[in-house]
């Protein structure tokens, strides 16, 4: 086997997959932006994606905030800079850990569920059935999930921000002996609107990407149980990698230096 040919084939397959994904994303955006919409389906997806993800995102945020307070205290106490703990917790959670960890958790929970559901509909001919019933599968299946994920992830992240900061607060007050007033004052002193806004913009992008990967891999699922299983795995893996990639890109746009 010629190794150059193998590299070439892999590169061409990558370009082809990128082209298919971008075309799918453009079609999905078109159907999200143009009527008719299905409000009942959007509301149901908002509940599935947003409301039912609250426990997992909340638990992730609270423990991340708690660990962050402990670790940063351990590090900063060596330089007598314990007062920086509140700021480090607030900035880390709002700018990075809130959106990224919530995005990854939602990619695992929601991206997988979307891919499995749409993939099963593909292999049981339910997507073909939609077409024969004069219903566009992009409008009925893809658009409600994309709209719901894009709108709800920022809300989830806002909740995660508050819970994460409060996790750090609880550890700092009850374990590390900080004064509640001083801790909260330092948090609000250091936190700027842009820190929270950048995190929410990231969450919007991540919500879009998670739903896009779930829908794309489910829609193109190969036949059989193995095909649906693969679609689910690809949705989670590609969603997580895209979240980490776009996290850097959005950070670069908001904080270039």
């Amino acid at each position, binding site marked *: 086997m010629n190794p150059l040919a193998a590299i070439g084939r892999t590169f061409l397959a990558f370009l082809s997959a990128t082209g298919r994904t971008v075309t799918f994303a453009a079609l999905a955006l078109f159907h999200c932006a143009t009527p008719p919409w299905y409000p009942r389906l959007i509301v149901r997806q908002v509940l599935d994606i947003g409301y039912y993800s609250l426990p997992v995102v909340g638990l992730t945020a609270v423990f991340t905030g708690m660990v962050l307070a402990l670790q940063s205290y351990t590090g900063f106490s060596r330089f007598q800079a314990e007062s920086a703990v509140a700021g480090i917790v607030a900035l880390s959670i709002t700018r990075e850990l809130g959106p990224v960890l919530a995005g990854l958790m939602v990619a695992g929970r929601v991206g997988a569920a979307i891919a499995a559901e749409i993939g*099963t509909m593909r292999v*049981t*001919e339910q997507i*073909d*059935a939609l077409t*024969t*019933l*004069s219903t566009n599968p992009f409008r009925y299946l893809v658009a409600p999930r994309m709209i719901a994920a894009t709108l709800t992830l920022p809300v989830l992240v806002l909740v995660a921000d508050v819970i994460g900061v409060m996790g750090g607060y609880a550890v700092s007050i009850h374990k590390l002996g900080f004064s509640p007033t001083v801790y909260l004052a330092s948090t609000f002193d250091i936190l700027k609107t842009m820190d929270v806004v950048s995190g929410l913009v990231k969450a919007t992008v991540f919500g879009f990407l998670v739903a896009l990967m779930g829908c794309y891999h489910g829609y193109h699922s190969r036949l059989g149980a193995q095909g649906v299983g693969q679609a689910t795995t690809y949705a989670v893996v590609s969603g997580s990698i895209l979240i980490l990639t776009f996290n850097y890109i959005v950070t670069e746009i908001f904080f270039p230096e």
Partner: protein
Amino acid sequence: MTDGTAKISVRGLKKSFGRKTVLDGVDFDVAPGESLVIIGGSGTGKSVTIKCILGLIEPDEGTIEIDGDNATGLGGGDRDALMAKFGMLFQGGALFDSLTVWENVAFRLIRPRGASRREAREAAIDNLGMVGLGEDVADLHPAELSGGMMKRVALARAIAARPDIVFFDEPTTGLDPITADVINDLIVSVREKLGVSTVSITHDMASVRKIADRVAMLHGGRLVWTGSAGEIDASGNPFVDQFINGHADGPIAMDVRRP
């Protein structure tokens, strides 16, 4: 239009997947109110033929006309308007798991046609009655139904919006002989009541004898025999004879390794 009376007219239909040619020039017509059954072995392109007519697969070559109008390469509103003429019973039913039975049956009435949920539910229950199911199943989910009931609900969904043409993909596959006969009777009764044209694909010869006006045998990407249902036993065609008698030996060669 190729034939002045044809509901469906297919000419020179070709479709390949990669190097595999599935359809290699298929021609047939279906008259108004007629029941055409396409028979043939597994993988001979029966489902592909139906999916090309429905627009789910784009053919490589050939023409498909419905009521004299071109039915290939359509998009958006034109495709939706054409789909309104079709009903389709999928092999596995393809009922939507997340919806109840009545929401499945009334799907086309609620979404594209905008009927109120109350009207749609009443219409769904009427259609369930046509396939021998009562109101008691209306609020069940598809996962709670037996295979035969699923086929009946799928049939009710296929006819709910009163299409002109109904397609049946292996309507009796996976059912016991008695339930299969009930489904065959329902297909005949629905066709007589609604006056629709039907195109069915099946391996089940009992089904063929019951529901077909005309039979076409697909082999090697082409129709190798077409005739009335009554002529099938005396067709004189070796492909048809081998298929209806279920013989391993004959012109239809199977890729089976001999011991």
